[in-house]
């Protein structure tokens, strides 16, 4: 995938991107890394569509930094397990056109939903520390999504459950 453009993942890994390590742990970590890479790219799009110098743009910048840090953490976790972190794509397709601040906020929330979903796969692993790390990252992503959306979900990151958004 290096040098190619990718689409923003929906929380599942492409097995061909897992550096020859088919273990569920590496697969889940690579999926989370792919979601973080996509979010890091996506926040660049989000920030560019928010009013220059606004508090929202500052929040987008803070969130982008959080994703970059998480990306570094995941890369370290993958390397420590003897696998190679899959490099980020040069560019990612975003779900739709982002021409307005409202579309930018919606994209940020969508990015966070996908990050939350990817981290839930870490929670499903038996490794105690990865499970705790994953749960805290699901929570962090849900909090960022709540801030962008202004609404809450009953089951962040959990597909197949009722997740109607409630405006505040």
């Amino acid at each position, binding site marked *: 995938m290096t040098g190619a453009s990718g689409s923003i993942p929906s929380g599942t890994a492409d097995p061909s991107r897992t550096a020859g390590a088919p273990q569920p742990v590496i697969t889940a970590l690579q999926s989370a890394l792919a979601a973080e890479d996509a979010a890091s790219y996506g926040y660049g799009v989000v920030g560019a569509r928010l009013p220059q110098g606004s508090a929202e743009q500052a929040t987008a910048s803070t969130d982008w930094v959080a994703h970059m840090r998480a990306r570094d953490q995941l890369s370290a976790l993958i390397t420590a397990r003897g696998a190679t972190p899959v490099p980020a794509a040069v560019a990612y397709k975003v779900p739709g056109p982002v021409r307005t601040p409202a579309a930018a906020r919606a994209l940020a929330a969508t990015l966070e939903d996908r990050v*939350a979903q990817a981290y*839930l796969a870490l*929670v*499903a*692993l*038996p490794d*105690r520390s990865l*499970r*705790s790390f*994953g*749960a*805290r990252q*699901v*929570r962090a*992503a*849900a*909090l960022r*999504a*709540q*801030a962008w959306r*202004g*609404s*809450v*979900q*009953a*089951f*962040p*990151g*959990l597909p197949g*459950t*009722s997740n109607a958004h*409630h405006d*505040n």
Partner: protein
Amino acid sequence: MADDRLVPGLAATAPARRALLIASVAALPALLTACRGVQALGTPPPPPADVDTLRSAIEHETALVATYAAVAASGGSAAPGGQAGPAGAAAGGRTAAALAVVLADHRQHLAQLSSRLSEPAAHGSATPTGGARVVMTVAQLEQAEQAASDRLIAQLAGLPPALAELFASIAASEATHVPYLRAARRSR
């Protein structure tokens, strides 16, 4: 004509039902013997730790539902600043709406958790009345949400994967209730 068809049908089923009841009573001694047989096997083993954890989560979620229901029953809105009195003591449409949304989330959490327990929960499946609950301020509700989120994350170790995912998702949802309620409280 319709009545002509229905009445004979009813008359025919009544004796059959009586026969079934009698047969059930006749079978009672055998059933009681069977129960004694189960008791003779000894004290059943304690439930696995994850069942206890799930039961505990159901009880906490039930308490949250009861707390929010009590707030809704008392007026469903926040005291100014969330500090001066119970959450239901003063009017505030936006806070009341937010409290209703959060209550709906907790009801969904409770339903999902209860559905993972194969036996009926002692309290979890009952509709909480909340009659004896202390009505909290919104600020106290925010603290309860944070504590609930932290508790669920602390309980993840040892849970089956699907249950761990549910706990983590609910923990995330409950954490988001904190800023959600705070925003509603401060917008009044």
